[in-house]
């Protein structure tokens, strides 16, 4: 029973880590895509520059996927050789996923807004596209910090509770 509950928490953590940043990235790339389409419909030559901005909020989805895979791998769930975790240990693994899940979702949305505003810079001053990318890329910092914390937590928990065989 205890192991089943641990598995449940681990899976919920992995699902949140992959799902929330994925949703944020989908919404974010959609928003920037709309802005990019607006510019490209008037001036197709700017496609390359606005595409970079559209890609920026997509990274959170990838980070979330990475954390989900690490969770399943570190706990042994992926290989089917899960140690006998207590439900509290399962909950701890889920908590380790939360920084990436929550920060990934919100940072994708906010990065998308910065990137969509940057599309306006590209539209008016294409030579300043580097600045537009920098403004949006700075938001990425917080997604990377959350990724780092989630990785460190997962690593620490695996070392503490014992790695999967």
């Amino acid at each position, binding site marked *: 029973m205890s192991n089943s509950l641990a598995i449940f928490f681990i899976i919920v953590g992995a699902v949140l880590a992959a799902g929330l940043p994925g949703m944020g990235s989908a919404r974010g790339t959609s*928003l920037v895509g*709309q*802005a*990019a*389409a*607006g*510019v490209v*419909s*008037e*001036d197709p030559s700017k496609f390359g520059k606005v595409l970079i901005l559209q890609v920026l909020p997509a990274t959170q989805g990838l980070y979330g996927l990475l954390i989900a895979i690490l969770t399943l791998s570190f706990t042994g769930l992926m290989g089917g050789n899960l140690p006998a975790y207590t439900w509290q240990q399962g909950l701890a693994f889920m908590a380790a996923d939360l920084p990436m899940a929550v920060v990934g979702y919100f940072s994708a949305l906010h990065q998308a*807004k910065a990137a*969509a*505003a940057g*599309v*306006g810079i590209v*539209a*008016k001053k294409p030579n300043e596209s580097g600045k537009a990318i920098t403004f949006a890329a700075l938001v990425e910092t917080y997604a990377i910090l959350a990724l780092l914390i989630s990785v460190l937590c997962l690593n620490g928990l695996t070392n503490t509770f014992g790695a999967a065989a």
Partner: protein
Amino acid sequence: MKDTEYTFAVARIRVNETRLMDRQQLNAAIGAADYADCTRRLREYGYDFSLGDAGALRGRTDAMWELLQSVLPDPHGLDSLLVKNDFHNLKVLLKALVSESDPDGLYLTPSIYDPEALRPLVYERKNDALPLPLQHADRSAYSILTKTRFAQLGDSVIDRAALEWQIKLAEKADHPVLSELAEADAALTDIKILYRCVLTGKAPSFMRRAVCACKAFDKEAAIEAADAGMDPLLSFLHYTPYADAVSALTESASAFEKYCDDRRLSILAAGKSEAFGILPLAAYYYAVQTEVMNVRILLAAKKNGLPEEKIRERMRTPYV
């Protein structure tokens, strides 16, 4: 409507803003040797003079409105900016009816309601069939025009109704800048009316019917000051947010018109830095209107051989 729903529209407008005449291009057109040289330069900036000056200006406005209509997520989002044109068109139709003249060519576009659709309703006095915002103004102005032939009062009643509707529509749009613009329009129009009333010795009863209530100052106090004379009116204005209008007002009518247009555009300048929402679209609408006005003044000035410095004095500040 969420601001992010305007993302596509704002991006398209940003690209089109780069096609507006900037200060450098405007200066080059002002510096043109003569009318022919000026139109040659304006052609380079996208004006098509194949249908004459009026056609070129109309073409620019129509293209702007076509673009805005194609990208606006809410087709009524900019109604508060158009409403003045509808009331102007009502004025044109009523005058044409009373004076038995032809209103063609006098309409202002774009407008919320098609003036040609309003025409039979006004001519056949089907007041109830008119759009609701126009009904009261139509009834009052028609009564004034037919009973008293006091065209100025008829105009003022319609202008006031237009401002009141503009304020209501801006409130409905729920955007602080559009509300600020509507309030500024009302205040500036009131100042112009009061100033002219003092010059022409109009009675306070006329002022009460013509002046629209606004947040910038108390209507009754303003009418009282205007009734007391020019100096009390100007002193009164010094204690309102429009203190800087006094110098333009006393300089000349065209200086005050320029002040009004520049003030409106300065309110909308916030649209330059907004990435989402309706404001950049409203600002673009005004930016094109300002450019068209500058070109109209420029063409008339070049035709009449006005010197460059006189033309520059009349030029509105461009948006870009």
